């Protein structure tokens, strides 16, 4: 899908650790924007009551990219966002390390929170990524 919107879209699917500092430095926002909502999903030390050391994420990458772009397009129709950036790590992610980073920039707080939560909910419904706990 071609990104014909004026929204700044950034999507990275990577086996590398998520570098929040670098993502922060790369942020741009215009003077009309008043709200940045930022979410970090971090691997917890237990899954279904069992202690784990990591989670291995598997992705069907070509479809992941497409489905994220479908979600971005729908999100941009629903809310006046200026920027959406999302990084999902795949492969083995150790406990206490982030697997997901999302940032949404919009004029107002309510829009930014709603869009960010809608995007994560949508991801958990349609984006083909799977987890396997590592003991």
């Amino acid at each position, binding site marked *: 899908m071609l990104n014909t919107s004026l929204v700044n879209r950034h999507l990275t699917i990577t086996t590398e650790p998520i570098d929040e500092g670098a993502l922060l430095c790369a942020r741009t926002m215009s003077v009309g924007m008043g709200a940045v909502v930022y979410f970090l999903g971090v691997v917890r030390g237990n899954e279904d009551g069992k202690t784990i050391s990591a989670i291995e994420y598997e992705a*069907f990458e070509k479809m992941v990219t*497409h489905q994220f772009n479908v979600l971005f397009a729908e999100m941009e129709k629903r809310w006046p966002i200026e920027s959406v950036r999302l990084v999902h790590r795949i492969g083995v992610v150790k406990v206490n390390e982030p697997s*997901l980073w999302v940032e949404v920039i919009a004029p107002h707080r309510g829009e930014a929170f709603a869009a960010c939560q809608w995007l994560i909910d949508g*991801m958990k419904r349609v*984006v083909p990524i799977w987890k396997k706990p590592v003991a």
Partner: protein
Amino acid sequence: MEISVHFYSYLKELTGCARTVETLAADTTVGVLHDQLMEKFPKLTAMKKSTLISVGVEYQPRDYVLHDGEEVSLFPPVQGG
């Protein structure tokens, strides 16, 4: 026609393979392909209800009619994040 089928996550563990190629009559639907795969890999049957099916990079329903050369993927509910 020939259809390439990919399995992801624990469906891959149930079939013991990541990919198979199925030979099908023209106008076969996704549902018929799924039934044929469950015959070939009986362990898939237990996951029948929760299995998601895409053709290329789009989700498709059981009545979607397949075309020669399309790639089908079968996988369990997604769990990103």
